[in-house]
Structure formats: C-alpha cells, structure tokens
C-alpha cells in the first residue's frame, strides 16, 4: 500500500518527537580552564561598534590607497594597537581615550569618504596614533583571570580579521560603482564617529 502524505507526516512527526524528547546536555558553553581566554579575546574587538568601524575603515582606506598601503596599514595597526594595549595593561595612563577613539572613526571616515591619498608614512602615522587609543582602551578593559597569551592571540587575530573584512569590501574599488560605494561606507563610518564623539562629550 502506498503511504499517503498524512501517513508520512505522522511518521516524521514521531521521529521528530523522539529527537526532541531525547535531549542530552549540550555543553555549549566553555567550562572553567578551557579555551575561554582565546574565545574571549576573539570576541572582544568585535563587541564594540566604535572599534569595529575604525578597524574596518583602516582596511577600506588601505584598499583605496592600493599597494603597499593595503598591507602596511593593516600590519601597522595591530602592532601599534598591541603597544597601546601593553601600556593599558601596565597601568600607564592615557587621557581622552574615548575622544581619541571617536576621532579615529571621524578622520578615517573622512579619509575613506574623500579618498584622501597622503604619503604612506603619514597614513601609517595617522593609523598608528589612533591604534594606540584603541589598544589602550582594550588593555585597560581586559578581564582578570584569563589566559593572557590565548586572550592576546584571539584579540589580535580578530583585529586582523576586521581589517581583512575592510580590505575584502575594498576590492570593489576597481569599479566606478564600487568607488562610490566605498565613499558611502566612509560616510557611514564618519556618521558613527560623530555619534561616538557626541556620546563621549555627553558622558
């Protein structure tokens, strides 16, 4: 006898019910002593929109400027950011961090929006200065009791991946519509920067 659709439905409902009621512990959350350090570090840079905007903007700007800036800027940023992080971890004070972070989004947004093309050394210097603010903020926020090395590695890898996202988006620069799109993205970063500056001043 050929099973009717109703029979098939009833059979699959039974299977589904068995699966649903035969649940086991998921162990979906990291336990104490596991790779919490690495995952926390990986998550940290993407947890704040101000950081995300600035880091993606570095990649976008590098893509607009082309070689060698396309790899010099994303290499310079994590290294100088880590230096800022080290200062934060050591307790070296840095005034006006929130303003610096907001200013980074504003100036990087302007650079991408108007496709500003300074000499490579100046572009790397600007990116490096802002990287110190971002790194210092991360360094002072690092949670105690985590695995320092694993946390650091996750943190740096996530930052590098955010630059990679910017560079990948920036590959549309070869087309005219892509250039317009990137300028629009620069405008979005600028708007975000203005918002964060307003928040920093209001706080």
């Amino acid at each position, binding site marked *: 006898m050929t099973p009717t659709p109703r029979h098939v439905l009833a059979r699959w409902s039974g299977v589904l019910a068995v699966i649903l009621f035969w649940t086991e512990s998921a162990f979906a959350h990291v336990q104490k002593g596991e790779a919490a350090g690495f995952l926390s570090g990986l998550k940290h840079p993407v947890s704040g929109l101000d950081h995300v905007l600035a880091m993606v903007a570095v990649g976008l700007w590098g893509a607009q400027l082309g070689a060698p800036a396309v790899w010099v800027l994303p290499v310079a940023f*994590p290294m100088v950011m*880590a230096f800022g992080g080290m200062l*934060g*971890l050591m307790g070296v004070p840095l005034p006006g961090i929130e303003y610096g972070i907001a200013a980074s989004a504003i100036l990087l947004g302007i650079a991408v929006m108007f496709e500003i093309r300074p000499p490579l050394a100046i572009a790397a210097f600007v990116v490096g200065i802002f990287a110190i603010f971002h790194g210092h903020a991360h360094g002072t926020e690092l949670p105690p009791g985590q695995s320092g*090395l*694993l946390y650091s590695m996750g943190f*740096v890898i996530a930052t590098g991946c955010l630059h990679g996202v910017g560079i990948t988006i920036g590959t549309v620069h070869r087309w005219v519509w892509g250039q317009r799109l990137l300028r629009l993205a620069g405008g979005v970063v600028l708007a975000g920067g203005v918002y964060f500056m307003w928040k920093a001043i209001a706080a």
Partner: protein
Amino acid sequence: MSRPTHQSRIPIYAAVAFAFAMSPLTGHAHLNSTGMGPIYDGLMHFLMSPEDLVPVLALALLSGLRGATFGRRTLFVLPGAWLLGGLAGLAASATNGNAVVSAVWFLLIGGLLALDAKLSLRVTTAIAAFLGLYHGYLNGAGLGLSFPSAAALLGLIFAVFVLVALAAAFVIQLQASWARIAVRVVGSWIFASGLLLMGWAVRSTAMR
C-alpha cells in the same frame, strides 16, 4: 537424550547475557582515563601549548621565507637543540617558564618575520639553537626524570620536527607576492601578541 530445542536454549542464552551484563569492566573508552601514551602526551602537550608552538611556527615561517637551505637547517637544528635542552632539563628540578622571556621570543621572531629580515644562515641557526635549548630545558624540567618522561620528550620533539617541516615547506613553495605578505602579516600578529603578553606579564608581576 533428546536434542535441545530452540526454546530450551533461551534460558541458557539469557543466563550468558545476564552474566555478561552483571560483570562489567571499566571501559577505558575515553582518553581522560587512559591517556594517549607518553609519546602522544608529549606531542599533544606541544600542540596545546601556545608558548612553545607559536615561536616554533614563527621560526619555521621565517626560515621558509629565506629558502630551502634555511628551512632544512631549522628542521634539524631546532629539534636537535630541543632534545639536548630537554635531556638537560629532565635531570633538573621543575621550573616554570618566565612569561617575559616567552614574550621576548614572540617579539623577536614575530618581529623578524614581519620585517622579512634577511638573516644569515648562521644567525638563523643560532636563533633555532637557543629557542630549542630554552624551551627544551623548560619542557624537560617540567616532565621530570622517568622513562615515560623521556618518551614524552621524544613525542614533543617529533611534533616540533613535523611542524617545522610542514610550515617551512609550505612557505618555501609560495610564489605569489601577496602570499608572502600574508606570511609577514602572521608575523605582525605574533609580534602584537608578544607585546600584549609582555603587558600581562608586567601586570601580573605588579599585582603580586
């Protein structure tokens, strides 16, 4: 005597099944109860210890960027020095590695890799030897003097050899300039991790 019927065998089968069911032995089906044996324990220790793994990876990538001669030199000098350091450490009392020294290795080799430093073969050999001696000594001291420890050390050195072989060979055959730049980006990440590790080490020292 009549032959046993199929039905009359059922109690016998049931008794056998019952005996099996009532006499369970420890399964040892999971590695947390059995371990992997000392050689694999050593191998896994290396692969799960970023303090050891990352500098070795960085040096293998650096050697690969410089070419096959450098790769071959690192391939044999690093595990050899690791073995010597490990054997010296086996007889020593247990000691913990210094986080600042670990950070310095990250900064040194990561920085050289990021810069694509044109090191001589002699300098590369010296770095491989010092890295192997230092980390081998720490591993050996942590293991303690026993036969399983020596086997674990061998497994660890085997892992170093394989990692260097794979990573260096992978980089040597890279032709595209962007691929070589990607390797240097990895070096910058290692350098950056070293800076943060240095910050952690200083903060931990200050908090004690």
